[in-house]
Protein backbone atom coordinates (compact mmCIF):
# COMPACT_ATOMS: atom_id res chain seq x y z
CA UNK A 1 0.00 0.00 0.00
CA UNK A 2 2.73 2.39 1.05
CA UNK A 3 4.66 1.70 -2.10
CA UNK A 4 1.54 2.32 -4.16
CA UNK A 5 1.04 5.74 -2.62
CA UNK A 6 4.66 6.64 -3.22
CA UNK A 7 4.31 5.63 -6.85
CA UNK A 8 1.11 7.64 -7.12
CA UNK A 9 2.72 10.80 -5.81
CA UNK A 10 5.76 10.54 -8.02
CA UNK A 11 3.38 9.70 -10.89
CA UNK A 12 1.50 12.92 -10.23
CA UNK A 13 4.79 14.83 -10.25
CA UNK A 14 5.74 13.30 -13.61
CA UNK A 15 2.18 13.94 -14.76
CA UNK A 16 2.50 17.63 -13.92
CA UNK A 17 5.51 17.81 -16.24
CA UNK A 18 3.57 16.09 -19.05
CA UNK A 19 0.56 18.30 -18.35
CA UNK A 20 2.57 21.50 -18.85
CA UNK A 21 3.87 20.37 -22.22
CA UNK A 22 0.46 18.96 -23.22
CA UNK A 23 -1.09 22.30 -22.33
CA UNK A 24 1.39 24.03 -24.61
CA UNK A 25 0.28 21.72 -27.43
CA UNK A 26 -3.39 22.40 -26.69
CA UNK A 27 -2.88 26.18 -26.69
CA UNK A 28 -1.48 26.12 -30.20
CA UNK A 29 -3.92 23.49 -31.40
CA UNK A 30 -6.80 25.69 -30.26
CA UNK A 31 -5.33 28.77 -31.87
CA UNK A 32 -4.70 27.27 -35.30
CA UNK A 33 -5.73 23.62 -35.43
CA UNK A 34 -2.09 22.61 -35.56
CA UNK A 35 -0.04 20.20 -33.48
CA UNK A 36 3.29 21.88 -32.90
CA UNK A 37 5.85 19.12 -33.21
CA UNK A 38 8.59 21.57 -32.23
CA UNK A 39 7.08 22.21 -28.79
CA UNK A 40 9.38 19.78 -27.01
CA UNK A 41 12.50 21.08 -28.75
CA UNK A 42 11.53 24.66 -27.93
CA UNK A 43 11.17 23.62 -24.28
CA UNK A 44 14.58 21.92 -24.41
CA UNK A 45 16.17 25.05 -25.83
CA UNK A 46 14.61 27.19 -23.09
CA UNK A 47 16.00 24.76 -20.52
CA UNK A 48 19.48 25.28 -21.98
CA UNK A 49 18.99 29.00 -21.57
CA UNK A 50 18.06 28.47 -17.91
CA UNK A 51 21.15 26.25 -17.57
CA UNK A 52 23.39 28.94 -19.08
CA UNK A 53 21.95 31.57 -16.78
CA UNK A 54 22.46 29.41 -13.70
CA UNK A 55 25.99 28.55 -14.84
CA UNK A 56 26.75 32.25 -14.99
CA UNK A 57 25.87 32.54 -11.34
CA UNK A 58 22.22 33.55 -11.48
CA UNK A 59 20.18 32.03 -8.69
CA UNK A 60 17.69 29.32 -9.70
CA UNK A 61 14.61 31.26 -8.71
CA UNK A 62 15.67 34.27 -10.75
CA UNK A 63 16.82 32.22 -13.74
CA UNK A 64 13.45 30.41 -13.76
CA UNK A 65 11.18 33.43 -14.40
CA UNK A 66 13.80 35.06 -16.65
CA UNK A 67 13.80 31.92 -18.79
CA UNK A 68 10.01 31.92 -18.96
CA UNK A 69 10.02 35.51 -20.18
CA UNK A 70 12.68 34.68 -22.77
CA UNK A 71 10.75 31.58 -23.85
CA UNK A 72 7.62 33.71 -24.16
CA UNK A 73 9.45 36.19 -26.36
CA UNK A 74 11.00 33.34 -28.34
CA UNK A 75 7.57 31.80 -28.96
CA UNK A 76 6.27 35.12 -30.29
CA UNK A 77 9.34 35.48 -32.47
CA UNK A 78 8.90 31.99 -33.92
CA UNK A 79 5.25 32.71 -34.73
CA UNK A 80 6.05 36.06 -36.37
CA UNK A 81 9.06 34.88 -38.36
CA UNK A 82 8.39 31.22 -39.16
CA UNK A 83 4.64 30.59 -38.88
CA UNK A 84 2.98 33.85 -39.89
CA UNK A 85 4.24 33.91 -43.48
CA UNK A 86 2.64 30.49 -44.04
CA UNK A 87 -0.39 30.97 -41.78
CA UNK A 88 -2.86 30.27 -44.58
CA UNK A 89 -1.00 27.28 -45.98
CA UNK A 90 -2.62 23.81 -45.83
CA UNK A 91 -2.31 22.14 -42.45
CA UNK A 92 0.11 19.51 -43.75
CA UNK A 93 2.50 22.26 -44.82
CA UNK A 94 2.36 23.72 -41.33
CA UNK A 95 2.98 20.32 -39.75
CA UNK A 96 6.04 19.82 -41.92
CA UNK A 97 7.24 23.28 -40.96
CA UNK A 98 6.96 22.50 -37.24
CA UNK A 99 8.85 19.24 -37.85
CA UNK A 100 11.54 21.24 -39.63
CA UNK A 101 11.56 23.71 -36.78
CA UNK A 102 12.04 20.85 -34.31
CA UNK A 103 15.07 19.59 -36.24
CA UNK A 104 16.44 23.10 -36.53
CA UNK A 105 16.10 23.91 -32.82
CA UNK A 106 17.55 20.52 -31.92
CA UNK A 107 20.57 21.08 -34.17
CA UNK A 108 21.03 24.62 -32.93
CA UNK A 109 21.07 23.42 -29.32
CA UNK A 110 23.63 20.75 -30.24
CA UNK A 111 25.76 23.31 -32.03
CA UNK A 112 25.63 25.84 -29.18
CA UNK A 113 25.72 23.58 -26.14
CA UNK A 114 27.01 20.22 -27.36
CA UNK A 115 25.56 16.74 -26.93
CA UNK A 116 27.19 15.85 -23.61
CA UNK A 117 24.43 15.30 -21.05
CA UNK A 118 24.68 17.80 -18.23
CA UNK A 119 23.24 17.59 -14.77
CA UNK A 120 20.69 20.30 -14.20
CA UNK A 121 20.20 21.63 -10.68
CA UNK A 122 16.96 21.10 -8.82
CA UNK A 123 16.03 23.64 -6.18
CA UNK A 124 14.37 20.91 -4.16
CA UNK A 125 16.28 18.51 -1.98
CA UNK A 126 16.28 14.86 -2.90
CA UNK A 127 15.42 13.94 0.67
CA UNK A 128 12.09 12.49 1.56
CA UNK A 129 9.49 13.57 4.03
CA UNK A 130 7.34 11.15 5.99
CA UNK A 131 3.69 11.99 5.35
CA UNK A 132 1.50 9.58 7.35
CA UNK A 133 3.86 6.71 6.72
CA UNK A 134 4.34 7.48 3.03
CA UNK A 135 7.78 8.70 2.06
CA UNK A 136 7.58 11.44 -0.50
CA UNK A 137 10.55 13.29 -1.93
CA UNK A 138 10.70 17.06 -1.69
CA UNK A 139 11.60 16.97 -5.35
CA UNK A 140 8.26 15.41 -6.29
CA UNK A 141 6.38 17.80 -4.06
CA UNK A 142 8.28 20.73 -5.56
CA UNK A 143 7.51 19.66 -9.12
CA UNK A 144 3.84 19.21 -8.23
CA UNK A 145 3.75 22.67 -6.62
CA UNK A 146 5.49 24.42 -9.53
CA UNK A 147 3.30 22.71 -12.17
CA UNK A 148 0.22 23.48 -10.11
CA UNK A 149 1.09 27.17 -9.80
CA UNK A 150 1.90 27.47 -13.51
CA UNK A 151 -1.35 25.80 -14.54
CA UNK A 152 -3.32 27.98 -12.13
CA UNK A 153 -1.71 31.17 -13.40
CA UNK A 154 -2.44 30.16 -16.98
CA UNK A 155 -6.03 29.31 -16.09
CA UNK A 156 -6.56 32.68 -14.43
CA UNK A 157 -4.93 34.47 -17.34
CA UNK A 158 -7.16 32.76 -19.90
CA UNK A 159 -10.41 32.80 -17.94
CA UNK A 160 -10.26 35.94 -15.84
CA UNK A 161 -8.51 38.60 -17.88
CA UNK A 162 -9.51 40.60 -20.91
CA UNK A 163 -6.42 39.47 -22.78
CA UNK A 164 -7.37 35.87 -22.05
CA UNK A 165 -10.90 36.52 -23.26
CA UNK A 166 -9.71 38.01 -26.56
CA UNK A 167 -7.20 35.18 -26.93
CA UNK A 168 -9.95 32.58 -26.59
CA UNK A 169 -12.24 34.54 -28.90
CA UNK A 170 -9.55 34.76 -31.57
CA UNK A 171 -8.94 31.03 -31.30
CA UNK A 172 -12.60 30.07 -31.60
CA UNK A 173 -13.81 32.55 -34.22
CA UNK A 174 -11.12 34.64 -35.88
CA UNK A 175 -13.53 36.34 -38.28
CA UNK A 176 -16.14 37.30 -35.69
CA UNK A 177 -13.34 38.43 -33.35
CA UNK A 178 -11.86 40.78 -35.94
CA UNK A 179 -15.25 42.46 -36.23
CA UNK A 180 -15.03 43.11 -32.48
CA UNK A 181 -11.66 44.81 -32.86
CA UNK A 182 -9.56 41.86 -31.66
CA UNK A 183 -6.12 41.83 -33.26
CA UNK A 184 -6.28 38.18 -34.19
CA UNK A 185 -2.81 37.90 -35.64
CA UNK A 186 -1.21 39.19 -32.43
CA UNK A 187 -3.40 36.88 -30.40
CA UNK A 188 -1.93 33.95 -32.33
CA UNK A 189 1.54 35.24 -31.52
CA UNK A 190 0.56 35.60 -27.89
CA UNK A 191 -0.69 32.00 -27.91
CA UNK A 192 2.68 30.82 -29.23
CA UNK A 193 4.43 32.87 -26.56
CA UNK A 194 2.34 31.38 -23.77
CA UNK A 195 2.73 27.86 -25.13
CA UNK A 196 6.46 28.32 -25.34
CA UNK A 197 6.64 29.57 -21.74
CA UNK A 198 4.46 26.76 -20.36
CA UNK A 199 6.48 24.22 -22.33
CA UNK A 200 9.68 25.68 -20.87
CA UNK A 201 8.37 24.87 -17.39
CA UNK A 202 8.13 21.21 -18.33
CA UNK A 203 11.70 21.26 -19.65
CA UNK A 204 13.10 22.91 -16.54
CA UNK A 205 11.20 20.49 -14.30
CA UNK A 206 12.25 17.37 -16.16
CA UNK A 207 15.91 18.30 -16.70
CA UNK A 208 17.09 17.40 -13.17
CA UNK A 209 15.53 13.95 -13.62
CA UNK A 210 16.71 13.15 -17.17
CA UNK A 211 19.98 15.12 -17.56
CA UNK A 212 20.00 18.01 -19.99
CA UNK A 213 20.94 17.31 -23.62
CA UNK A 214 19.41 18.24 -27.00
CA UNK A 215 17.30 15.07 -27.25
CA UNK A 216 15.98 15.32 -23.71
CA UNK A 217 12.38 16.14 -24.64
CA UNK A 218 11.93 13.53 -27.37
CA UNK A 219 10.30 11.00 -25.10
CA UNK A 220 8.53 13.63 -23.02
CA UNK A 221 6.78 15.03 -26.10
CA UNK A 222 5.34 11.55 -26.82
CA UNK A 223 3.87 11.44 -23.31
CA UNK A 224 2.58 14.98 -23.79
CA UNK A 225 0.90 13.91 -27.06
CA UNK A 226 -0.63 10.99 -25.19
CA UNK A 227 -1.87 13.36 -22.48
CA UNK A 228 -3.30 15.87 -24.96
CA UNK A 229 -5.01 13.18 -27.06
CA UNK A 230 -6.37 11.45 -23.98
CA UNK A 231 -7.75 14.70 -22.61
CA UNK A 232 -9.20 15.78 -25.93
CA UNK A 233 -6.75 17.85 -27.94
CA UNK A 234 -8.88 20.99 -27.64
CA UNK A 235 -9.33 21.00 -23.89
CA UNK A 236 -6.84 22.68 -21.51
CA UNK A 237 -8.44 20.90 -18.56
CA UNK A 238 -8.22 17.65 -20.52
CA UNK A 239 -4.50 18.21 -21.06
CA UNK A 240 -3.94 18.53 -17.33
CA UNK A 241 -6.06 15.52 -16.40
CA UNK A 242 -4.56 13.56 -19.30
CA UNK A 243 -1.07 14.48 -18.14
CA UNK A 244 -1.74 13.25 -14.63
CA UNK A 245 -3.30 10.01 -15.87
CA UNK A 246 -0.36 9.31 -18.20
CA UNK A 247 2.16 10.14 -15.47
CA UNK A 248 0.54 7.86 -12.91
CA UNK A 249 -0.06 5.09 -15.46
CA UNK A 250 3.51 4.84 -16.69
CA UNK A 251 4.80 4.99 -13.14
CA UNK A 252 2.54 2.16 -12.00
CA UNK A 253 3.10 0.16 -15.18
CA UNK A 254 6.86 0.51 -14.72
CA UNK A 255 6.64 -0.87 -11.20
CA UNK A 256 3.97 -3.54 -11.46
CA UNK A 257 3.98 -4.89 -15.00
CA UNK A 258 6.99 -7.14 -15.56
CA UNK A 259 9.53 -5.95 -18.14
CA UNK A 260 7.88 -2.54 -18.61
CA UNK A 261 10.11 -0.66 -16.17
CA UNK A 262 12.44 1.70 -17.98
CA UNK A 263 12.66 0.55 -21.56
CA UNK A 264 9.03 -0.13 -22.35
CA UNK A 265 7.52 2.88 -20.57
CA UNK A 266 7.40 4.80 -23.82
CA UNK A 267 5.42 1.96 -25.33
CA UNK A 268 2.85 2.49 -22.60
CA UNK A 269 2.60 6.13 -23.65
CA UNK A 270 2.07 5.10 -27.27
CA UNK A 271 -0.48 2.50 -26.19
CA UNK A 272 -2.40 5.26 -24.41
CA UNK A 273 -2.46 7.34 -27.60
CA UNK A 274 -3.72 4.40 -29.66
CA UNK A 275 -6.32 3.32 -27.09
CA UNK A 276 -7.58 6.86 -26.68
CA UNK A 277 -7.93 7.27 -30.43
CA UNK A 278 -9.67 3.91 -30.79
CA UNK A 279 -12.03 4.08 -27.84
CA UNK A 280 -12.66 7.79 -27.36
CA UNK A 281 -11.39 9.74 -30.35
CA UNK A 282 -12.57 13.07 -28.93
CA UNK A 283 -10.78 12.47 -25.66
CA UNK A 284 -12.15 12.68 -22.13
CA UNK A 285 -12.99 16.38 -22.31
CA UNK A 286 -13.18 17.00 -26.05
CA UNK A 287 -16.28 18.04 -27.89
CA UNK A 288 -17.62 15.70 -30.52
CA UNK A 289 -16.48 16.79 -33.93
CA UNK A 290 -19.50 17.92 -35.88
CA UNK A 291 -19.05 18.07 -39.59
CA UNK A 292 -21.51 19.67 -41.94
CA UNK A 293 -22.18 17.47 -44.91
Amino acid at each position, binding site marked *: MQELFQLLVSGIATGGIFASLALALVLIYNAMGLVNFAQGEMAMFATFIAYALIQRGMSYWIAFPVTLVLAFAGGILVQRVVIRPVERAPILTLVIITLGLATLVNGLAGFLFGYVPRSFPSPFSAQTVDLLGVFISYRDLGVIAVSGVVLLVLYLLLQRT*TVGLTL*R*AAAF*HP*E*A*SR*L*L*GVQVSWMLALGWGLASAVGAVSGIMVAPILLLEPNMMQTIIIYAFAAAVLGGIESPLGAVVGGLIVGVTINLAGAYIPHVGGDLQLAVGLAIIILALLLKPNGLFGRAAVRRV
Partner: protein
Amino acid sequence: MSSLLELEGVRAGYGPTSVLHGVSLSVPDGGVVSLLGANGAGKTTTLRAITGGVRWTGEIRLGGRSLRGKPTEDIVRAGVAHVPEGRGILTELTVDENLRLGSHLRRDGADVKKDYDRVFEYFPVLKERRRLSASTLSGGEQQMLALARAFLMKPRLMLLDEPSLGLAPMVVRSIFEIIRAINQTSKVAVLLVEQNARIALELSSDAYVLEVGRVAVHGDSTELKNNESVRRSYLGY
Protein backbone atom coordinates in the same frame (compact mmCIF):
# COMPACT_ATOMS: atom_id res chain seq x y z
CA MET B 1 -26.28 66.49 -42.21
CA SER B 2 -22.76 65.53 -43.25
CA SER B 3 -21.97 62.05 -44.51
CA LEU B 4 -20.41 59.67 -42.03
CA LEU B 5 -19.96 56.87 -44.52
CA GLU B 6 -19.51 57.27 -48.26
CA LEU B 7 -19.09 54.62 -50.93
CA GLU B 8 -18.12 55.70 -54.44
CA GLY B 9 -18.13 53.26 -57.32
CA VAL B 10 -17.19 50.33 -55.13
CA ARG B 11 -16.42 47.12 -56.96
CA ALA B 12 -15.77 43.94 -55.07
CA GLY B 13 -15.97 40.20 -55.33
CA TYR B 14 -14.66 36.85 -54.30
CA GLY B 15 -11.76 35.63 -56.40
CA PRO B 16 -12.69 35.86 -60.06
CA THR B 17 -16.41 36.38 -59.31
CA SER B 18 -17.29 40.02 -59.02
CA VAL B 19 -20.35 40.83 -56.95
CA LEU B 20 -20.43 44.62 -56.72
CA HIS B 21 -20.20 46.57 -59.98
CA GLY B 22 -19.79 50.11 -58.76
CA VAL B 23 -21.93 50.80 -55.71
CA SER B 24 -22.24 54.37 -54.46
CA LEU B 25 -24.14 55.27 -51.33
CA SER B 26 -23.86 57.43 -48.28
CA VAL B 27 -24.99 57.27 -44.67
CA PRO B 28 -25.47 60.60 -42.88
CA ASP B 29 -24.12 61.13 -39.39
CA GLY B 30 -26.73 59.76 -36.99
CA GLY B 31 -29.02 58.62 -39.80
CA VAL B 32 -30.61 55.28 -40.62
CA VAL B 33 -30.22 53.98 -44.17
CA SER B 34 -31.69 50.76 -45.57
CA LEU B 35 -29.92 48.64 -48.11
CA LEU B 36 -32.47 46.40 -49.76
CA GLY B 37 -32.54 43.91 -52.57
CA ALA B 38 -32.99 40.28 -53.49
CA ASN B 39 -30.74 37.43 -52.45
CA GLY B 40 -27.38 37.70 -54.15
CA ALA B 41 -27.78 41.38 -55.00
CA GLY B 42 -24.61 42.19 -53.05
CA LYS B 43 -25.99 43.60 -49.78
CA THR B 44 -23.80 41.46 -47.51
CA THR B 45 -20.78 41.99 -49.76
CA THR B 46 -21.27 45.75 -49.45
CA LEU B 47 -21.10 45.51 -45.66
CA ARG B 48 -18.10 43.21 -45.85
CA ALA B 49 -16.30 45.65 -48.12
CA ILE B 50 -16.85 48.44 -45.59
CA THR B 51 -15.17 46.47 -42.77
CA GLY B 52 -12.43 45.11 -45.00
CA GLY B 53 -13.72 41.54 -45.20
CA VAL B 54 -13.45 41.50 -48.98
CA ARG B 55 -11.10 43.24 -51.41
CA TRP B 56 -12.57 46.27 -53.17
CA THR B 57 -11.73 49.07 -55.56
CA GLY B 58 -13.33 52.48 -55.77
CA GLU B 59 -13.52 54.54 -52.64
CA ILE B 60 -14.94 54.05 -49.14
CA ARG B 61 -14.66 56.88 -46.64
CA LEU B 62 -15.55 56.98 -42.96
CA GLY B 63 -15.80 60.49 -41.55
CA GLY B 64 -14.00 61.77 -44.64
CA ARG B 65 -11.06 59.35 -44.30
CA SER B 66 -10.41 56.62 -46.81
CA LEU B 67 -10.63 53.06 -45.52
CA ARG B 68 -8.44 51.78 -48.34
CA GLY B 69 -6.04 49.08 -47.23
CA LYS B 70 -7.09 49.24 -43.58
CA PRO B 71 -7.40 45.95 -41.73
CA THR B 72 -10.76 45.03 -40.22
CA GLU B 73 -9.58 45.61 -36.65
CA ASP B 74 -8.60 49.21 -37.38
CA ILE B 75 -11.89 49.98 -39.10
CA VAL B 76 -13.75 48.55 -36.12
CA ARG B 77 -11.60 50.56 -33.76
CA ALA B 78 -12.44 53.68 -35.76
CA GLY B 79 -16.06 53.24 -34.67
CA VAL B 80 -17.79 50.71 -36.91
CA ALA B 81 -19.79 47.90 -35.29
CA HIS B 82 -20.62 45.23 -37.85
CA VAL B 83 -23.16 42.58 -36.88
CA PRO B 84 -22.45 40.08 -39.63
CA GLU B 85 -24.60 37.54 -41.41
CA GLY B 86 -25.19 34.78 -38.86
CA ARG B 87 -24.71 37.31 -36.03
CA GLY B 88 -21.11 36.48 -35.13
CA ILE B 89 -21.96 35.13 -31.68
CA LEU B 90 -19.10 33.24 -30.02
CA THR B 91 -21.03 30.21 -28.92
CA GLU B 92 -18.14 28.71 -26.96
CA LEU B 93 -18.24 31.70 -24.62
CA THR B 94 -20.83 32.89 -22.13
CA VAL B 95 -23.30 35.68 -22.76
CA ASP B 96 -21.30 37.92 -20.45
CA GLU B 97 -18.04 37.16 -22.23
CA ASN B 98 -19.65 38.01 -25.56
CA LEU B 99 -20.76 41.35 -24.14
CA ARG B 100 -17.32 42.02 -22.70
CA LEU B 101 -15.81 41.45 -26.14
CA GLY B 102 -17.99 44.36 -27.25
CA SER B 103 -16.69 46.73 -24.59
CA HIS B 104 -13.13 45.42 -24.25
CA LEU B 105 -11.50 48.29 -26.14
CA ARG B 106 -13.23 51.07 -24.23
CA ARG B 107 -11.41 53.10 -21.62
CA ASP B 108 -14.39 55.14 -20.37
CA GLY B 109 -15.19 52.85 -17.43
CA ALA B 110 -18.05 54.86 -15.91
CA ASP B 111 -19.86 55.16 -19.23
CA VAL B 112 -19.32 51.47 -19.94
CA LYS B 113 -21.13 50.64 -16.75
CA LYS B 114 -24.04 52.90 -17.71
CA ASP B 115 -24.18 51.28 -21.13
CA TYR B 116 -24.39 47.82 -19.54
CA ASP B 117 -27.34 49.08 -17.51
CA ARG B 118 -28.93 50.36 -20.71
CA VAL B 119 -28.32 47.03 -22.45
CA PHE B 120 -29.99 45.08 -19.67
CA GLU B 121 -32.88 47.54 -19.75
CA TYR B 122 -33.30 46.92 -23.48
CA PHE B 123 -32.80 43.17 -23.18
CA PRO B 124 -33.65 41.91 -19.67
CA VAL B 125 -33.27 38.31 -20.89
CA LEU B 126 -29.54 38.85 -21.40
CA LYS B 127 -29.15 39.83 -17.76
CA GLU B 128 -30.88 36.64 -16.65
CA ARG B 129 -28.69 34.51 -18.91
CA ARG B 130 -25.45 36.38 -18.31
CA ARG B 131 -23.56 33.40 -16.93
CA LEU B 132 -24.87 30.88 -19.43
CA SER B 133 -23.18 29.76 -22.60
CA ALA B 134 -24.26 31.85 -25.58
CA SER B 135 -25.05 28.58 -27.37
CA THR B 136 -28.08 28.11 -25.10
CA LEU B 137 -29.77 31.24 -26.47
CA SER B 138 -32.58 31.08 -29.00
CA GLY B 139 -32.17 32.74 -32.39
CA GLY B 140 -33.96 35.88 -31.24
CA GLU B 141 -31.90 36.07 -28.07
CA GLN B 142 -28.70 35.64 -30.07
CA GLN B 143 -29.76 38.54 -32.27
CA MET B 144 -30.37 40.58 -29.11
CA LEU B 145 -26.93 39.62 -27.85
CA ALA B 146 -25.33 40.64 -31.13
CA LEU B 147 -27.11 43.99 -31.05
CA ALA B 148 -26.29 44.53 -27.38
CA ARG B 149 -22.64 43.74 -28.03
CA ALA B 150 -22.54 46.14 -30.97
CA PHE B 151 -24.09 48.85 -28.80
CA LEU B 152 -21.43 48.27 -26.10
CA MET B 153 -18.74 48.99 -28.70
CA LYS B 154 -20.00 52.61 -28.61
CA PRO B 155 -19.78 52.87 -32.40
CA ARG B 156 -20.45 55.85 -34.64
CA LEU B 157 -21.88 53.51 -37.23
CA MET B 158 -23.63 50.16 -36.97
CA LEU B 159 -23.78 47.79 -39.90
CA LEU B 160 -26.62 45.34 -39.36
CA ASP B 161 -26.89 42.35 -41.68
CA GLU B 162 -30.49 41.10 -41.73
CA PRO B 163 -31.38 41.42 -38.05
CA SER B 164 -34.82 39.98 -38.83
CA LEU B 165 -33.55 36.77 -40.41
CA GLY B 166 -35.24 33.66 -39.06
CA LEU B 167 -37.06 35.45 -36.25
CA ALA B 168 -40.74 35.48 -35.31
CA PRO B 169 -42.58 38.69 -36.32
CA MET B 170 -43.05 39.78 -32.72
CA VAL B 171 -39.38 39.40 -31.94
CA VAL B 172 -38.53 41.33 -35.10
CA ARG B 173 -40.80 44.17 -33.96
CA SER B 174 -39.15 44.49 -30.58
CA ILE B 175 -35.65 44.28 -32.02
CA PHE B 176 -36.41 47.04 -34.52
CA GLU B 177 -37.87 49.18 -31.74
CA ILE B 178 -34.57 48.89 -29.91
CA ILE B 179 -32.54 49.67 -33.03
CA ARG B 180 -34.63 52.83 -33.31
CA ALA B 181 -34.05 53.65 -29.63
CA ILE B 182 -30.30 53.13 -29.94
CA ASN B 183 -30.17 55.33 -33.03
CA GLN B 184 -32.18 58.11 -31.44
CA THR B 185 -30.71 58.25 -27.96
CA SER B 186 -27.09 57.46 -28.79
CA LYS B 187 -26.91 59.16 -32.21
CA VAL B 188 -25.46 56.02 -33.77
CA ALA B 189 -25.79 55.92 -37.55
CA VAL B 190 -27.17 52.64 -38.92
CA LEU B 191 -26.74 50.96 -42.28
CA LEU B 192 -29.38 48.28 -42.31
CA VAL B 193 -29.33 45.38 -44.73
CA GLU B 194 -32.72 43.70 -44.96
CA GLN B 195 -34.82 41.35 -47.01
CA ASN B 196 -37.82 42.46 -45.03
CA ALA B 197 -38.22 45.76 -46.89
CA ARG B 198 -41.45 46.76 -45.20
CA ILE B 199 -40.05 46.91 -41.70
CA ALA B 200 -36.70 48.34 -42.82
CA LEU B 201 -38.37 51.24 -44.64
CA GLU B 202 -40.35 52.10 -41.52
CA LEU B 203 -37.13 52.61 -39.62
CA SER B 204 -34.89 54.29 -42.18
CA SER B 205 -35.03 57.77 -43.62
CA ASP B 206 -33.18 56.83 -46.78
CA ALA B 207 -33.01 53.62 -48.79
CA TYR B 208 -31.02 52.03 -51.58
CA VAL B 209 -32.14 49.02 -53.58
CA LEU B 210 -29.37 46.85 -54.99
CA GLU B 211 -29.86 44.76 -58.10
CA VAL B 212 -27.07 42.44 -59.21
CA GLY B 213 -24.34 44.57 -57.70
CA ARG B 214 -25.63 47.99 -58.72
CA VAL B 215 -27.82 50.59 -57.05
CA ALA B 216 -31.10 50.31 -58.96
CA VAL B 217 -33.15 52.71 -56.88
CA HIS B 218 -32.26 55.32 -54.29
CA GLY B 219 -34.64 57.57 -52.48
CA ASP B 220 -36.46 58.70 -49.43
CA SER B 221 -37.84 55.71 -47.50
CA THR B 222 -41.38 57.04 -47.38
CA GLU B 223 -41.36 57.69 -51.12
CA LEU B 224 -40.12 54.22 -51.91
CA LYS B 225 -42.70 52.71 -49.62
CA ASN B 226 -45.48 54.58 -51.43
CA ASN B 227 -44.17 53.99 -54.95
CA GLU B 228 -46.08 51.00 -56.12
CA SER B 229 -43.93 50.13 -59.12
CA VAL B 230 -40.72 50.17 -57.02
CA ARG B 231 -42.46 48.11 -54.40
CA ARG B 232 -43.62 45.52 -56.90
CA SER B 233 -40.49 45.23 -58.97
CA TYR B 234 -37.85 45.41 -56.27
CA LEU B 235 -39.27 44.97 -52.82
CA GLY B 236 -41.58 42.06 -53.43
CA TYR B 237 -44.58 43.02 -51.34
